[in-house]
């Protein structure tokens, strides 16, 4: 079953000067990991940020449709706050707030009006799901900035989980991390897909091959090919996909 479908999705930057995404039609299945790959500037991050309407923060214009459970999130009556609550995001650089571990995780539930007495439980559950609880359970009041990059990134995942999303978008979540932290995050992703729909942008093709169920290959703002990861990597249909995957460019 598809969680998200895009129809003729176009994104323009800089008052229309840059055509960042061109007529992208893509389906993202529920409870799977979908990887978006392609060389720098190919539009994969723009596509990711189109899914929770983060592009418009930088003044981008979007046409076409993004259907989440069949509802167009770009329709005029869509509530962006509710959308972003439903579609969480984890960024390239770990970006915990300069607050304690606890406050970081409690931030989202708080702004959505969660009652004070529920917070302890939500914080613990989120940290457990992000495989961080055992490392921080006795250091909840310490500033998040004192932890390692890998721990910070798992904290950011816990922070995203705390508002109870259905989809989580990952924008190159491991590119700033060492191999061991990367392995932990990848392991976490495969656990999380039981409950959530995951979309991950990655520069690292091995990573896409390791963790994802489906893969979309972007080039110059176009979606060249998408399908089951095994098929994309073993029998790509498009010459350009094959060239990219075999390392001829990118």
């Amino acid at each position, binding site marked *: 079953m598809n969680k998200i479908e895009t129809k003729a999705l176009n994104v323009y930057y800089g008052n229309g000067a840059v055509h960042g995404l061109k007529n992208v039609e893509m389906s993202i299945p529920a409870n799977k990991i979908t990887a978006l790959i392609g060389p720098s500037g190919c539009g994969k991050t723009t596509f990711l940020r189109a899914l*929770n309407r*983060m592009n418009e*923060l930088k003044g981008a214009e979007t046409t076409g449709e993004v259907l989440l459970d069949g509802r167009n999130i770009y329709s005029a009556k869509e509530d962006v*706050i*509710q*959308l*972003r*609550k439903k579609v*969480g*995001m984890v*960024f390239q*650089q770990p*970006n*915990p*707030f*300069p*607050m304690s571990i606890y406050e970081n995780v409690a*931030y*989202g539930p708080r*702004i*959505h009006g969660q009652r004070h007495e529920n917070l302890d439980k939500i914080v613990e559950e989120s940290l457990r799901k992000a495989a961080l609880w055992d490392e921080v359970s006795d250091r909840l009041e310490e*500033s*998040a*900035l*004192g932890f390692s990059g890998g721990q910070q990134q798992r904290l*950011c995942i816990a*922070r*995203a989980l705390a*508002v109870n999303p259905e989809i989580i978008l990952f924008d190159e979540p491991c590119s700033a991390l060492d191999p061991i932290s990367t392995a932990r995050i990848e392991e976490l992703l495969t656990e999380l897909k039981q409950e959530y729909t995951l979309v991950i942008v990655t520069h690292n093709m091995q990573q896409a091959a390791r963790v994802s169920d489906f893969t979309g290959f972007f080039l110059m703002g176009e979606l060249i090919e998408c399908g089951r990861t095994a098929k994309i990597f073993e029998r790509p249909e498009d010459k350009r996909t094959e060239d990219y995957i075999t390392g001829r460019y990118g």
Partner: protein
Amino acid sequence: MALKERLVTASLCFTALVSLLFLFVVVAYIVANGIGAISLDFLLESPYRFEQGGIFPQIIGSLCLVLICLLVAVPLGVASAIYLAEYAPDTLITRSVRFFGECLAGIPSIVKGLFGLVFLVYYLHLGISMLAGGLTLGFMILPWTVRASEEAIKAVPQSYREASLALGATKLQTIRTVVLKSAYPGIITGILLGMGKAIGETAVVLLTAGSGLESFLPRSILDPVGSLPVYIYMLATQGHTSAALSRAFGASLVLIALFLAISVVALVLRNRYLRQMGGGRR
């Protein structure tokens, strides 16, 4: 090349030492000349016959003026800074407004004092009063608090804002919780600089708040109020005895100590806050 490098380093070091020495001499001179005047009576009594008694009303007056000044300048300054940094579109108009705001900071204080006198004291009938003086001081330091707060808000990493918005926070929630919390140390520094200007300001206070010789404590904010800088000015220009000058230095010493004390408290608050945020790693 190595010799040239060393020469440059040495001369830079020398320049720094000269500047510091100059500062040190000024402070040492004030301390040496003023310490004799300081006594418990000097700090806690009211002045009488111009050159006798203490400077208690002046100390309290200066503190009250700064308090009113901050009550004006901090909320207005921070609010304007939030608008300029977070909401104002980057157009020719906002750039001009920002530029004129900065020029405003450069207007001599006597001119701002004159404005306070004509507009607040006469036109609004506030009279020569603590309120008129404090308000004028507030308007005087406003450009600095706006500027410093705006810089502090702009220095907050964009990634904090994105993280907050991606969690479904509104822009206002993001600013109130994440942005202001991170900008707080920088804002404190800006307020402190403005406060330093305000507590030492003479011209504005002379024109709007009182003659500085008041021997009574103000009973309301509409009473005239004495202040340390104006008192020092009066003693220095109208005193005829060596006692007057010594009292002027004594009052200067108190003024400096007052400012240092406020600064230290603010810096301690700021550093404790920075530690809470993450060991100063920003």
